[in-house]
């Protein structure tokens, strides 16, 4: 499984939705993610992908769509 698939799986697990058709929709505006959902997202990225997101740098506007989340994760993996 590549990064994209893994992230989409985590998002599916968190939101109950296959978001692969809506890669640019805002998950916060759609009511699919909130603060506590974000916490779970970060913890799952850490445990399943080994990606440590520096939470003090976490800006919601940079993480609000599936595409942006995947891009952020890839950047942190690089």
């Amino acid at each position: 499984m590549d990064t994209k698939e893994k992230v989409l799986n985590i998002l599916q697990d968190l939101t109950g939705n296959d978001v692969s058709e809506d890669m640019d929709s805002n998950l916060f505006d759609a009511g699919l993610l909130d603060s506590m959902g974000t916490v779970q997202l970060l913890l799952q990225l850490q445990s399943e992908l080994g990606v440590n997101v520096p939470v003090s740098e976490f800006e919601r506007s940079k993480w609000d769509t599936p595409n942006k989340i995947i891009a952020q994760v890839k950047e942190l993996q690089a």
Partner: protein
Amino acid sequence: MQITNVINAIDKNSEQTPDRIAYDYLGETHTYHELKCYSDALASKIGQMNLDAQAPIMVFGEQSFEMVATFLGIVKSGHAYIPIDQHSPNDRLEMIQEIAKPTACIAVEKLPIQIKGIPVINADELAQIFKTTGRFDEKLAVSGDQNYYIIFTSGTTGKPKGVQISHQNLTSFVNWMLKDFNLPDAPVSLAQAPYSFDLSVMSLYPTLVSGGTLQVLPKKITDNFKELFDYLPKMNLNVWVSTPSFVDICLLQPEFDAAHYPTLSHFMFCGEELTHRTAVQLKERFPQAKIYNTYGPTETTVAVTAMEITQKILDEDQRLPIGKPKSDMKISVLDQSGKPVDVGKTGELVISGPSVSKGYLNNPEKTAHVFQQVGNHDAYHSGDLGTKDENGVLHYLGRLDFQIKLHGYRIELEEVDHYLNAQKLIKQAVAVPKYDTNHKVSQLIAYVIAEDNDFENNMDLTVAIKKGLQATMMSYMVPNRLVFKSSLPITANGKVDIKSIMREVNS
């Protein structure tokens, strides 16, 4: 320090330390002198409005100094206040008005709908009132058994219940906070919970009566972690008051520790179970700080038991105890027939003493169901399951009914079901909690049979349903996940088989 009157104790700070900061909202500060001036002016104005003397006043807004000054002005005028969060759906506002029959409404923030039939003071008028000078008549102020505030909680039929907290209930709570927790003098306290959630009372009144400063952390900051961690160290907090869920967010940042927060000496948790995992992490980061786990339903005034979580407790108990009741309270562990169970056995926690509310406002039926007169005091049947060990220490074990706590918010699953099934895109639905490995609810999941619809995919359908739900129910009650099904499992009795859905969700 002990107090006999909450209002006088707060006002005393305006005489003794008038220039001290009472409220700090992101650097915008207000003093105790201002708090007294604003609240006296409002009390005087309310006194001239010829309102129904015993009826409460609705207050609509979010965290702001004006909100706190309004609460104080209202109780000085002899009325109780009903805090309603700005983010409440319109239906809830109307329903609370219908149930509580308030005599007036004060809109600290702009109302989303028109409130009919009662006088409304809007934000502009309120600002004008705060500029006037007025005196309040001490004899009129709320005291004794009169209601001080009324907080609405989740009700099973979709009708929220208004818990009446009297001046005496509140005074007893505040005195316990001042006596049993070794709080610093004039503490700088975290004010993070919305005022419609009674966890906020835990920082609001103990801080204001002791001349401390409320450091506000509004939702717009906590929602954006970068801003949160920029601002948090600048708050110079002494006393932390939050749900365990909120401190979990903060623990994500490695620098949330004693070296970076040297003044933080007390952590007070309430609203949901404090997990061993969270407490261990916190103790490692803040080895010198005092960490308190507290427990109590809204019906018994914020909290009634407490336990300092020491290293010894962490070593001994995997599931943390909720501690012992405050000294004037009694908590019995009763079986189904109402008899006390043996030490170490499980039963319902029944709470009695001066912290127990007189009941739900204008709802004698629900009141009679869970409140009982025992001797001179009311007893409240909490619906919480627990045990008492040989040292008299209580342990929380879960619920008797379908009530859950999600990130500190109390939710009746039946209420969620009520709203789900009223949604026009839903044919049938049932909500169940998903638990994490620490017995804590991590998500609310709804199994949904959708009505026939033209949505292209489930995502669009989910978004449409969530939008619809947000208009009718509090956002924290809206299920995190919707799982679409063509049918739901049914029990032999023809009911939806919630247990099997629970098993599936938690497998």
